[in-house]
């Protein structure tokens, strides 16, 4: 039974990866964040079944690998963004899906999503940008199985940079959303 649940999680992860890879350019573009939500959920449901079928014959090795893969993906808790952009990058998605799965499987788990911006541009616009980045991630987590009640969003705008430099390197590290677990 347990094995089956794990395989199912893995399949779900794979399926969702497939789905988001297809939708990566359109799903959280600025200005039409509301639209892709429904579409994404439908696709997820559809691909889920296929994933489970494809992996259903795999044995215990796959389970162990899946566990490790899941843990590695969960280790990533900071997700980066382009300038003046709230679109989730393609390379963030596998980890975000892993977090979604974890939240879906652990209903008592709670996260705070902290949105940040780099120092360029205005303070208040950056506060709003940080918030919209956090909201983008929140929607993505919900589209992949997390419940709204498990997620809180907060923005620090440009006030809490990860790096203090005034250059592209620092800026790219500062445009981010951090997932912080309040309870596991």
């Amino acid at each position, binding site marked *: 039974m347990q094995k089956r649940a794990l395989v199912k999680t893995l399949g779900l992860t794979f399926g969702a990866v497939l789905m988001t890879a297809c939708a990566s350019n359109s799903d959280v573009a*600025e200005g039409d964040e509301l639209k892709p939500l429904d579409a994404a959920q439908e696709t997820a449901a559809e691909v889920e079944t296929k994933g489970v079928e494809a992996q259903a014959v795999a044995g215990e090795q796959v389970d162990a690998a899946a566990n490790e893969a899941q843990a590695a993906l969960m280790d990533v808790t900071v997700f980066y963004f382009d300038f003046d952009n709230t679109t989730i990058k393609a390379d963030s998605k596998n980890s975000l899906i892993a977090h979604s799965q974890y939240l879906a499987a652990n209903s008592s788990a709670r996260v705070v999503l902290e949105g940040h911006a780099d120092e360029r541009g205005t303070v*208040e*616009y950056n506060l*709003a940008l940080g918030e919209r980045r956090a909201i983008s991630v929140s929607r993505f987590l919900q589209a992949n199985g997390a419940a709204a009640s498990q997620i809180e969003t907060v923005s620090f705008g440009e006030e809490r940079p990860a790096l203090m430099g005034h250059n592209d390197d620092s800026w790219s590290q500062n445009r981010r959303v951090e997932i912080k677990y309040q309870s596991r």
Partner: protein
Amino acid sequence: MNSRLIKLVIQIFLLSIVAMQARAELVIEITQGKQSAIPMAVVPFKWKGLKALPENVAQIVANDLGRSGYFNSLPKTEMLSLPNTEEEVFYRDWELLKQDYLVVGEIKQDSRGGYIINFKLIDVNTRTALMNQKLTGGASSLRDIAHFMSDRIFAALTGLPGAFSTKLVYVTTNRERTKFNLSYADADGAREQNIFSSKQPIISPSWSADGKKIAYASFENGRSEIFIQEIASGKREKIASFKGSNSAPAFSPDGKKMAMVLSRNGNPDVYVMDLATRQLDRITKHYGIDTEPQWMPDGQSLIFTSSRIGKPQIYQVSITEKKPKRITFEGDYNARARITPDGRKMVMVHRNNGRFHIAAQNMKTGVLQILTSETHLDESPSVAPNGSMVVYAASVGDRSILAAVSLDGEVKFRLPSKYGDVREPAWSPLLK
């Protein structure tokens, strides 16, 4: 011998006082003056007291007038004579130095330890006194008297109200961003005081029209919430802590309402709160970012930043009709607009060739002029209450400093702090 030694000791003592004061305060550096600035000289005032004066009144006045950009103050070292009364003025000296105006005066102590300042503003060309005034005050108010003098002289010569007796509030932080202070100082950076401190960020300070209160957003409870603080008493009140972010407060010109940005419905939108009833009126409703509201002088409409077309631009919206109209079209990043008191110009953060500068846009013609060039990452512009200058935060070297530029871009000065970063300046209204 002896008297010379005493003089030296006094000089060292005075220098150390100056050094002590400078450490705590912002220090002005004028980086660019106006081509057409009127040449004038504020001659050091006569003082016969035994102790040195706590403030150099003539120097404060000379600095004020020079910083305004309208005047070029002649340095003391270039003066050929140092008259203290109209009778002592040898006009040929000042004609030779091509000075248009002259301020002379003397300071006396009254019987109760206060000060009496007599000063005259003299027109060198007509050889007449334009102003002859006597001002009195206690030792602690010498600086206020000096700024008041500057206001009177500025108004007499330009026809504009002077803004030298005004204040600035701004946020100072250490490099590690673990301590934030909301600071309050004279418009020239002197007499800085912290009026609120926190380990969490403080942003967007904004004055009430009567100059008695400051609203700001503080993260002290883990996310941005709006507070109003009375300056005199320090009394604080939390007025907006809805779900999500609460930020960008702006008092209406009549002081009864406050525009603000709330994300309580999932996305940052502009609201107006009635401060007496705390009723909220939602002004914008869009899935883009709507933020940084600022009242037009008539209190009937707001200008704000919106990303509704994908990139930030400035919009104007009537608070009754609620139909935003775009008003900036040049460039792909225009944000945080502030309006001059006469409503004629709007200053804002404008991106040009990837760099963020302060620009002014004529509200009637739409013509945009970039005002700053030497500073980087310019943000948070705030207009002086007489509409002459804009103070803003900028990055110079590795520090965030305050800088100011005149509305015509001709005068520039900086207010670098001795420690940490200085951000988010807000210039007070004219104070009674």
